[in-house]
Each structure stands twice: as C-alpha cells, then as structure tokens.
C-alpha cells in the first residue's frame, strides 16, 4: 500500500490533524507562572510534525507527477486486502461496546469464538473446536487474573443478574 498516492493522502491528513491540534492548543489554560507555558512544548512538536508532513506531501506529489501514473484516482483503495483486519476491528468494537453487559468472561469468550470463526471458517468441526478454544483460553486467563493476580475484571450485567 505504501506508494506516493497513499503518502499524499496521509500527508494531507496529518496536516489537517496538526491544524486542528494547533488550534486546540490555544485553549490550553495559561496559569501565569514563570517558565515554560503548558502549550509551548505541544506547539513545538505539532509544528515539527506539520513541517515534516509538508515535506512528505511535497516529495510524494513531485514523485507522483514525475512517475506518470495511469490511474490518477488517489482515493481508490482495495478494502478486500484488509478484510481480516476489518473483522478484527469490528469484533473488538463489539466486544468493547458489550463489555458492560457481557462482562470480561462471557464477552471474552464471545469475542474469541467470533473472531476464530470469522477468520477460520464456519464448518461444524471448526465451530466446535473454536468454542472449546475460546472457553478454555478465556476461562484460564479469567481465573489467572481473578484468583491469581486479584484483578476485579468486569462482571457484566448478565452474570450480576444471575
């Protein structure tokens, strides 16, 4: 994916990001003390980032023009390449959104089972295998953290009602 087209998009995105953050830096309170202000260091970092992003934009744009691409649509991205990563993102968002209801134990089992099945396949044999792996692995980790390390993992509404 690393080519001049994607570099141009990233550089523009980074410049927008710098603009928003530099603008937000003006909202940082000044307590009026002597010495370095709270917004000084972030501003320095953001300006450095903006300069680097501008250099990257310029460099990749010149390269893009000189290379003479047949396909000039810089927004064309092959999402199929990221199918598995997108599944992981989706499952993780689902896991985090339902954590309050399912808790770490049930939520973890659902997450691992879901991810294994989406990535590995839907045959009966595999589903049984995935279910076993998810119950055993999450159950083991939950026990280690709850009883071994004394961490209070989220219980979840469902188990609490039970």
């Amino acid at each position: 994916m690393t080519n001049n087209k994607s570099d141009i998009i990233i550089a523009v995105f980074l410049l927008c990001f710098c603009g928003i953050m530099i603008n937000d830096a003006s909202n940082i309170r000044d307590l009026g003390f002597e010495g370095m202000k709270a917004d000084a260091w972030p501003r320095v970092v953001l300006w450095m980032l903006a300069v680097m992003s501008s250099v990257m934009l310029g460099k990749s744009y010149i390269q893009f023009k000189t290379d003479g691409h047949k396909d000039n649509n810089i927004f064309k991205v092959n999402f199929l390449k990221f199918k598995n990563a997108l599944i992981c993102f989706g499952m993780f968002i689902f896991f985090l959104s339902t954590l309050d209801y399912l808790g770490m134990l049930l939520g973890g089992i659902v997450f691992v089972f879901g991810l294994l099945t989406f990535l590995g396949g839907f045959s009966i044999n595999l589903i049984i295998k995935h279910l076993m792996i998810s119950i055993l692995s999450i159950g083991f980790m939950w026990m280690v953290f709850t009883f071994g390390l004394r961490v209070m993992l989220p219980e979840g509404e469902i188990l609490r009602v039970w």
Partner: protein
Amino acid sequence: MLDVILQAGASVLLDPLTLGLMGIGTLAGLLAGAIPGFTIAMGVILTLPFTFGMSPIQGLATMMGVFVGGLSGGLMSGMLTGIPGTPSSVATTFDGFPMVRSGKPGLALGLGLWSSFFGGMISAIILVALAPQLAFLGLEFGPWDYFALIVFALTITVSLSGDNMIKGLIAGCLGLFAACVGEDEINGVARFAFGSDHIRQGFAFLPVLIGLFAFSQLLSDVEDNVKAKSPLMAKTADPVRVEHRKAIALVIKNWINLCRSSFIGIFTGILPAAGGSISNILAYDQAKKAAKNRDEFGKGAVDGIIAPESANNATAGGALIMMMALGIPGDIVTAVMLGALMIHNIIPGPSFIQDEPLLAYGVFIAFFAAHFFMVGLQAFSLRLFLLVTRIPMYVLASVILAYCAIGVFALHNITFDIWVMFGFGVIGYFMRKLGFPLAPMILGVVLGKLAELNIARAIGTSDDYFLFITRPWSLFFILMAIVSVIFPFYQNANKDSLFSKLYVPICMMVLSLPLFLMGSPVRMMIAAILLLSGGYFVYKRTTRLQST
C-alpha cells in the same frame, strides 16, 4: 557494597517464587523468540500485565527472563528450519542452517546456545562494572544535557529504523505528541482533552505500547487468509539432542571471536535504538573479515554461529547499561522495561543505582541468572516450540488479542484503557502498512514527558538558550544527533565520493570539540586522539583522491 549485592542476590536467588517466575519468563521468551512473527519486544510487552501484582524485583526478574530467553529462542527456528525467529538471529541462520543440513544439528544448537550464554555473561560483567560508572557520569548532566540526549536518542532511532527518514521523524513526532495529551507534568493543566475526563488523565503507557506494537503486529499476522489458516511454520523439525561438551570446547577455543562479537554487541546495545538486529549482522561481518577460512562462511562455519549469537545476547547487557544508568532505553525492549519500572513507581536515572541499590543489583543478578535458566530450559522449550508451531496463526492471534484486552484492563481497572489500546492498535496497523517505522513513535511516547520536563527545567533555570550549545555534554549530544541525521545519507552515498570518504573523519574531529570543553585530562586526551586521527584521515583521503 558487598552486603547490598548479597542482599539483592538473596532476594532473587533464594526466593523460590522469584526463581520460578524467572524460569517461566525464560521459557516464554524462548518460545516468543523462536516463533517467526513474534518478537522479543512482543513477548516482554505481553508479560508486563502479569507483573502488576508482583513486587518490582519479581516483575523485573520475570521480564529479564523473557528478554534473555527471547534473544536465544530465535536460534532454534533459524537453525532447524532456516527461518529466523527474531531479527536478532538472522545472521545465525547463515551458518547454523547449513550446519544442521550437513547432519550436525546437535552441535549447531549447542554452539548457538553456549555462544549466547558466554556472550550474555561477558555483557553481564560489563553491565555490573560499567552501569554504576556511567551513572556517576550521568550525575554531571543538567536538564540541557538530558534534553539533548533525548533528542539524540530519537534521531538515531529514526536514522536506523528505515530508509524513509521523513516517515521516521513523523512517527517520532506523533509519539512525542501522544505523550503531551492529558495533564502536563509541570502545571497540571489539561491539554487536548476535548472535554473528556478520561483523556484528561493522559494515555497510560502500557495500552499505547500494547496497541502500537502487539495489537498491530497480530493484525498484520492474520491479514493474509491463507497464511493465517496454515500452521505457524510450514517446515517442521525433529527434536535434537544438543552436543553440550563439544560446543563448549569449540566456543572456548574461538574465544577471540567470542570476545570481539560480545563487545560489538555491548557497544551496539549502548547506542540508543541499535538492538540485536544490527549487532548480530555486524558481528558476523567482522568475524568473516577476521577469519582465515572465509570460504567456509555460509557453509556451516563455527565462527559464523558464535559471532551473531554471542553478539545478540551481549546487546541486552549494553541496552540495560543505558537504561539503568541514564534512564534512556537502548531499544524497544528496554523501553518496555522502563515502562514496567514506571508502573512500579521507579524512575531510572543517574541516581537510580544509588537510590535503589537493591533493585538495581537485583536486576543485574536476574540478568546473570536468566542465562543459566536459558541453558537449562532450551531442550524443553525446543519440544514445546515444535508443538506450538503446529497451531495456525489465527488461533494464536485471536486468543492473544483477548489476552491483551484483559491485561490492559488490569492496569487501572478501567475500560477506557482498552479503547486506548484499540485506537493505538489501529494507528499502529496502518502505520506499518504505510511504511512508518514504529520504533521512533514508541521511543517518542516513552521519552516525551521526560523531554518536556527537562526542557521546562532548563528554561526555568536560565533563560540563556545558548546553554544548549555551550554546555559540553549538551553540545556533544546535539552534535551526535546531527551526525546520526546525516548517517543515512552516508550509508546511501557512493563509496568513492568525497562525502563518503570524509564523513567519518570529520565526525571524529567535530566530536572532539565538546570533549575538549569538558576539561578533564582523560577526556581531553580522547579529544586530542579523535582530532589528530580525524585530521590524519582527512589529509590521507583527500590527497589520495587528488592523485587519482
């Protein structure tokens, strides 16, 4: 001093729990190092959540086991299948794999194992001897010098981490910015919180690190559908009986190569950002140049195994010297170690060894002891490794992703930390895909707060900005930073060009200036040697160029 060492030794070696944890850590490290796609850094990061409930010495001893085990684990897959488990064992495969194929797998593994052991021991001795001395040197540093040192650490990371310097610098700046979010250390003012109480607390180090490194790595590992579903390694190997006696005798017989490679490893480790991945190749190259039988290299040469394996384990000692003495991580693994210490409210720096001698010497002793565990557990881990390699990547990745979430939650018991890990995981994944190196960003996150604190102290102490270039140490590090920024251009330059010929001697001459300014006789002598030898090389090379 002796009573402190004995006390520290007792806290590590006489506590069965600490020893047990270190053993488990070493085994986990050996496996993490052996599995291609997993790195030592990932092993250490994933171990970190388990250490929250432990005492600092237990936690650090466990992670030390993972670190040392990981450095040696890579040789198993590298030698038996030709696929290096970690970047730090790439050069080991050059001769290890041919030796195995020629019917000597036991000897090859033995050579790798014992070279790692002796290399680690040499670096451990240097660590114990040098770290306290370097810490004394660190006491000379003011905030200006520290700030310049951090700038140097970041620039050298950028220059060594990839061929696209701009992307490295952007990654470093992003890391520094991530460290700015939340309340600032000096005034306690909220920054970039956008009204969120969670963001106001800033991003905790661990979720950021796990997200950037482990989460993004796992996503990359399952990206390819076919690879994700097939077993971790297509090639398998049979259990091997290691030939210990013959290997020890050969390693000791080649002691010059062992010592040279170990010192290369230590020096590379001391340099910020230059880890085992560089030292093993450097040591291999030097061993080949120094060998009488150069033609045997690549066909199963004994020296070709001793050099990279002793160098990569010695790198760990070098990296620990910097972390323990100056609080500057030598590589990603020591950056994680630094984070682990911070979680236990311990901030390494020049006064760390004096303030926390029990912990500091405990770490030294754990480093020693982990090498013995590594030797003892290698045979068992080899069997375990052969079992693990049958598991498909998607199974391992799914389980580890869930483990990451549980581990991150355990840090502060808040769900927000898991969201942070997820967010940085997505950022890390796309950064990998877009060719941005992650090491500068991780170092930026680790050193960002320290950089801000020191620049604020410097400005608060004096409004004379010239102190950054008039103080010898600060000037030294700034010059080193400039040298490191120019280094990639030197690497890519034509070997016969004037720039390529004069880069090193001019750097030597330039670096002599701050050493002269330091005033002490020894440093002035070093400065004079640097200046004279630099001048000599400039004269010799320019006259040679003129004559041609």
